[in-house]
C-alpha cells in the first residue's frame, strides 16, 4: 500500500516539477489540469492527491509558494520552481531517462539475447 503511494508520489513529483519548469508559476488547479491534459487518466480519479505532493516538494525546498490572484480573481496559492528544484529536476530527468532506457532495453530483449 505504502509502496504504491511512494511510486505514484515519486512520478507525480517529477511531473509537477516539469510542469512548473515549462509553464512557470501555477496554482494547484492549474498544475492538476496540465498534468491531466498530458498524462491522460493518471490523475483523473483523485486530483486531491496532488496536494500532499506539493507540500512535500515545498518542504524539501524544490518549490516555493505564495498567495496570488487566480483567473476568477480569488485568492489562490501559486507554486514556482526554485533553483534547487531546477537542479533536482535535471538530476531526476537524467535518472529517469536512464532507468527508462534500461527497462526499455530489457523489454526489447529476446530469449536468445540473454543466453
Amino acid at each position, binding site marked *: 500500500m505504502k509502496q504504491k503511494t511512494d511510486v505514484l508520489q515519486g512520478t507525480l513529483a517529477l511531473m509537477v516539477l516539469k510542469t512548473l519548469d515549462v509553464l512557470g508559476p501555477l496554482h*494547484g*488547479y492549474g498544475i492538476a489540469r496540465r498534468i491531466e491534459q498530458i498524462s491522460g487518466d493518471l490523475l483523473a480519479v483523485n486530483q486531491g492527491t496532488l496536494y500532499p505532493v506539493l507540500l512535500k516538494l515545498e*518542504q*524539501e*525546498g524544490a518549490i516555493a509558494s505564495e498567495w496570488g490572484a487566480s483567473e476568477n480573481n*480569488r485568492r489562490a*496559492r501559486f507554486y514556482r520552481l526554485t533553483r534547487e528544484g531546477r537542479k533536482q529536476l535535471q538530476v531526476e530527468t537524467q535518472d529517469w531517462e536512464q532507468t527508462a532506457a534500461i527497462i526499455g532495453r530489457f523489454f526489447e530483449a529476446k530469449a536468445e539475447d540473454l543466453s
Partner: protein
Amino acid sequence: MRFLKRFLSRLFNSATRRANDERLREEIEEHIALQTAENLRAGLSGVEARRQAMLKFGGVEAMKEDYRAERGLLFIENLLWDLRNAGRSISRMPGLAAVIIVSLAIGIGVNTTIFSWIQMILFEPMPAVRGAANFLLIEPRTETGGYPGASWLEYRDLQTQVPALRDIVAFQTVAFNVGETGRTERTHGQLVSGNYFSALGLKPAIGRLIRPEEAERTGTEPVVVISYDYWQTRFRGAPEAVGQKLHVNERDLIVIGVAPRDFQGTMVPLKFELWVPATMTPALLGGTRDLEDRSTRAFSLIGMLEPGATREEAQAQFSTAMAQFARDYPEASAGIGGEILTFWKAPRGPQRLLISGLAILQGVMLLLLLAVCGNTANLMLARGSTRQREMAVRVALGAGRWRIVSLVLTENMLLALLGAGLGAAMAVWGTTALRVAPMIGAFPILFPTRVDELTLAFAILLGAACGLIFSAAPVVHLIRLGPQDGLRSNSNTPPRSRARKALMGVEVGLAMVVLIAAALFLQSFRSARQTDPRFRPEGVLLAAYDLSGRNPDEASEREFAARLLERLRTLPDVEAGAIATNVPLDLHGIPARSFTVQGRVRTEPGQDRAISNTVTPGYFKVMAIPLLEGNDFAEMGDRAAPAQAIVNEEFVRRYLNGADAIGRRIQTRGGSFAIIGVARNSAYDAFDEPAQPAVYLSYRDRPADQGEIHLRTRTGNETALTSEARAVLRDLDPMLPLYDVRTFSQHIERNLYLRRIPARMFAVLGPLLLGLAAIGIYAVVSYAVARRTREIGVRLAFGATSARVVLQIIRENLGVIGWGAATGWVLALVISVRAITKGAIDLPIFIGVPAILLSAATLACWIPARRASRIDPMAALRHE
C-alpha cells in the same frame, strides 16, 4: 541534508497546525471552484458542475489525512495526543492513580536511595576525587588471611618495585589532640605520603596542598592541610587561616591550605579534618618508630594503574616484591604476601561493613517493587476491562491495534514516570536525611551520597521498567481484543480473566516473601535490643582518653591509669569505676586473642582463640558481671602478684571441659597468666550472639596508651558525671582531652545505627505492602463481582442466601490467593533456613505473617462480595 530540512519544517508545521489547516482548506475550495467554473463552461448545470468537481477531486478527508501525515510528525503528534488523552484519563481516576503513583514512588524511592549508597561505594568511593573508582587497594596479606597494612619502609620500596602502579599513596589514620592547654579537642586526621594530594588530583580551596618533597625527610615540615568544613567552622572560612598555627599534639603546625569542599579523606565514609605529612609521625606521636620499623604496619596503600598496565601485572610485581621482603626481613615480613583489590572489595574497614548489607537490602527492595508492579498490573487490568467497550469503539472506528496499544502504554508510562519522579524526590530527601550518621565508635562518619544524573537515570529506568511490566498484561489483553468483543461482552458471559487471578496469586506470594523478610529483620533487630546482655548498661558513663601522642612507656601508662582511677573513685556520685581497652557491643567488635591453656591439648590444627579485653580491677563491679569463682584482679599498685587472667564460663566449658579453672596458666604471645577467677558469660559483639569464650587480662599487667573509662553512678543519672570526670582529667593532665563521652545506652544505640536504617525501612514498608496487597485483591474481586451481577441476581432469585453467595465468592478467590501465599511461604522458609537464621525457624513469624496476610486478603474479598450479595435480584436482572 534534505531529510533534515524536511524534518525541521515538519517540526515547525506540527507547531503551527491550525494555520496550515486553514491554508489547505482555502486551497481545496479554490481548486473546486475553478473546476466547477470549468465544468460550467463545459455546459453542466450549476449543481452537477460542483458535484463533478468534488468527485474529481476525490476523498477530501483521506487526502487531508495524507496531507497531515506528510506535513507534520505523525509520531510526535500522536504522542502528544496520547499524552493529553492519558492525562485526561488519569485525572478521571484520581484515587486509583494516587494509589498507583504513591506505591510506585515508595518502591522506587527506597530502591533509588539504596542504589545511591551502592553507587557511592562502586563509582565514587572518594568524594571530590575524579576517577576515584579506578584506585586499587594494595593490601599485604598474612597467611592466615589477615590484612595488617603496610609499613612505611615497605611503602617506599613498593613505589619503585611495582612499576605497573603509578603514584602509590600511603596514609594512616590518627586521632589528634588539637588546641591550647586545657582546651584540647580530639580531631581526626590522616598522616599522608607527600604525593597524597597530587595523586588524587586535588586542587586546594585556598592556599596550597602538601607537596611531594614535604614528606621526604623526617620531621622537617610542620605543615597541615585542613578540611573545608574545619576551615568553615574553626576559622569561619577566613582566608587568613592560611599561615596560622594549629596546636596539634603539643606541636605547632602551620596551616598551608584547605582541601576541596567535599573531600573527606581516603577511607569513606570516615570523615577526616586534618592532613599532615607522614614524616611528621615521630614528632606528633611521641617518637614512634613507624617510619623505621618494618613490623609496624600502620599505613594503608592505594594506587592507580599505569596506562596500559594490567592488574595482573601489578599483582605479579607486588607478589614478587612481598616475597623479596619476606626473604630480606624475615622478622617483620615472613609469611606476608599481598593482594591488589578494587576499592569496593575492601577487606577491612568501614566499607566492608556496608557493602554486604546493602546488596541484600537492594535485593529485597527490588522484590518489593516487583510486588508493587504486580499490584499495579492488576489494578490496570481491572480498569482496562471496564474500558473494553471504549477500546472496542476505537477499534471499530478504525484505530489501528498499535494505536490502541500505544494509547494504553502512554497512559501506564505516564503513571510510572510520575511515580518515578516522586520516588526520585523521596530519594533526594532520603539520602540527605541519612547522610549524617552520628559518631559510630571513635570516628566521625559522613556518607557522601547524593542523587546525581546516574541515580536519576536509575530511578527513571526503574519507572520505565515498572511501566512496561505492569503494562504487559493489559496490552496482551487488548491485542487479542476484536472490534466486536467489547461491544458484545458486557451483556453476555463474563470473561473470567485467568491473567488477573494469576497476577493476584503472584502478588500475594511476593508480598508473603517480603513481609516475612521484613518481620524476620525487625524481629532480629528487636531481639537485639531486648535480649539481656547479661551486664547492666544502665547508669554507666563511658569516656575515652588517649596517651598515644606522648609515646608513654608501660610504667607511665599504668601510673596514669592508677591515678586517674583513684581520683575518679573519690567523686561522691561514683559508685564504681574502671578502665578497659574495649567496650562490648561496639560496631567494630572486640579483638580476639589466640592462646594455649594449661591442661588442654588441641587435636585439630589451628589455635584456640577467645575474645580478649584488658580491664582494671573494679570492672566487673561496674558492669555488674558476677564473678562465679575466684576473685577480682589485684590492685593497680600491687607489684608482687603474678600476671593474672579471668576467664568466662564459656571458656571453661569449651577449653577446659568444665574442669576447675582457677590456678591454671594461659600462655599468649604477650606472656603467661594465671587464671584467678571465672566470670559469668555476657554479650561481647552483639546482643543475640551465641556464648563466646572470653579472657580478661589485667590493666596492671598489660597497660595501654588508650583507655575507656567506665563509671557507674550512684544517683542513676550518669550524664551528670561528665563535667566532674572532665575536671579530674584536666587536673591530671591539662593537655589531654576526654573524648567520646557517652552513656552506655547511647553507645549501644549508636552501634545499632546501621541496623536501624533497614529496620525502619521495613517497619514502614511492611504495613504498606500489606495494604497494597489488600487493595489489589479488593480491586480484582470487586471488578469480578461487578461483572457477575446478573449471575448473582439469578442465584439470589432462585433462593440462594446472601451468606452462601458471599462464601462462594470468597472461596473462589482465596483458592488462588492460597496458592500464591503457600508458594511465597515455602520460598521464604527456604531462604530463611538457608541464608538468614541458618536452620532455626521463627515459628511466630512463619505462622503470624501468613495469618495476617490471609486475614487481610479475606477482608479484601469479603467487602465486595457482601456488597454484591445485597443487591436486589430484580435490579440485578434488569442490569444492562
